[in-house]
């Protein structure tokens, strides 16, 4: 059991009645919790938005904003809807209990509150919250914030939906000989730094990293959350990746290590995005022609000796400050017709 579940949690008491407020606060403090109190629902909401609390003990009958209104507001607030609420009320009638639970209250205790029962309910609520927090933390660590938010809002369901967006593939050129020439610890360190830089570039432009494998990664722009112009975001990401690798290389060569180079392929259009895998282990990804094309364009960078290649659909919406060079139609494996390929030219520093 965590510290919060056994005592020492930060609790908020909302009750307009001073005697009730003092008594409940006293009981909770005797259990080892730290307690703050609010005189009405509006104050309670303000405090919840300002500070972090592990649990709210909420009276129903209050002036300015009653307990039901507080529950409604909490349910609509993404940042607060996971704060567990235990309603403490001397309102009679089962309908009040039902309404509270329907509005998201974890539990309902009748006043005067039985202290033993109060302790048990608070312990259970805090333990549930701890598990939920742990789950959220895991999602945050293994998924991007966008996927985590999508999961939180829409829940988890396997299966995809059609979306329009852009896909970016990148990898490190000549990675295998590099790996063979240095101790594995150095390779891990190189990859960690490399991925930190690349992830920053991708999330900075609203993309999400869908997969990483060895030195390669796949990123999606425009799903699960829509972006105004996914193609431009993807291309700006690629340009930033190239720039970051140049900076990284300057540091590496100064330390006597070989420079690295990357290749990036981007394609845009319709794809199917969603969670694939099993109900026990799944990942957010995209599939479809657009994805295959992006992967092929990335491979093609080696053939033509360019760092960033894009397809025609990606090029269409690009603003004028991005320089693009047409390479003409290229036969791509898996495509019946040759595909128009464009190279994005990184701005030269003077």
């Amino acid at each position, binding site marked *: 059991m965590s510290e919060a579940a056994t005592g020492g949690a930060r609790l908020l008491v909302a009750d307009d009645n001073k*005697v009730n407020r003092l*008594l409940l606060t*006293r009981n909770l403090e005797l259990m080892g919790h730290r307690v703050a109190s609010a005189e009405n629902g509006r104050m309670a909401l303000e405090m919840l938005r300002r500070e972090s609390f592990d649990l709210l003990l909420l009276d129903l*009958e209050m002036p300015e904003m009653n307990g039901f209104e507080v529950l409604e507001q909490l349910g609509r607030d993404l940042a607060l809807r996971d704060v567990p609420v235990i309603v403490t009320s001397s309102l009679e009638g089962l309908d009040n209990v039902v309404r509270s639970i329907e509005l998201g209250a974890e539990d309902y205790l009748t006043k005067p509150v039985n202290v033993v029962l109060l302790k048990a309910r608070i312990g259970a609520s805090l333990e549930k919250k701890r598990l939920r927090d742990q789950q959220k933390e895991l999602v945050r660590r293994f998924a991007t914030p966008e996927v985590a938010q999508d999961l939180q809002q829409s829940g988890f369901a396997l299966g995809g939906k059609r979306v329009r967006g852009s896909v970016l593939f990148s990898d490190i050129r000549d990675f295998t000989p590099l790996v063979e020439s240095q101790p594995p610890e150095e390779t891990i360190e190189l990859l960690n730094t490399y991925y930190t830089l690349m992830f920053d570039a991708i999330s900075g432009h609203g993309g999400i990293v869908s997969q990483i494998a060895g030195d390669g990664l796949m990123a999606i722009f425009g799903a699960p959350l829509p972006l105004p112009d996914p193609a431009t975001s993807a291309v700006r990401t690629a340009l930033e990746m190239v720039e970051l690798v140049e900076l990284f290389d300057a540091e590496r060569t100064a330390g006597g290590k070989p420079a690295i180079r990357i290749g990036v392929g981007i394609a845009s259009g319709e794809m199917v995005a969603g969670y694939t895998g099993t109900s026990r282990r799944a990942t957010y990804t995209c599939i479809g022609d657009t994805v295959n094309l992006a992967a092929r364009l990335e491979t093609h960078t080696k053939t033509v000796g360019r760092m960033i290649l894009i397809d025609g659909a990606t090029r269409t919406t690009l603003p004028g400050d991005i320089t693009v060079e047409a390479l003409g139609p290229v036969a791509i494996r898996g495509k019946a017709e040759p595909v128009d390929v464009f190279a994005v030219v990184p701005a030269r520093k003077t």
Partner: protein
Amino acid sequence: MSAEAIDLATFRELEATTGVEFVRELVATFKAEAPRMLADLRQSLVDGDAERFRRTAHSLKSNSNTFGATALGAMARKLELEGLDSVRASGSAPLDALAFEYTRVAQALTELHRE
């Protein structure tokens, strides 16, 4: 000794779980708040403010039960559930009776702490 206004078992239980000193302070708070609640009930009767009447009766009920003021709690509960209209029909008698019972409760609480 008019301690029958207070259910001793409830009161002692409160002292045992929260501490005698704390209960002394809580009683002081109740004595400071209750007269205002009684005045609020009369005022909402005059104003015809049924919502305020119900909420105040509800508060008084809740606090009475906390200290074991069972009779006072039951009277306040009746007012809460029956509402302003039923009280208005019987004039100020129910509120006078409530005020009288509160006086007994306040006195009993004082005596309990003198022991």
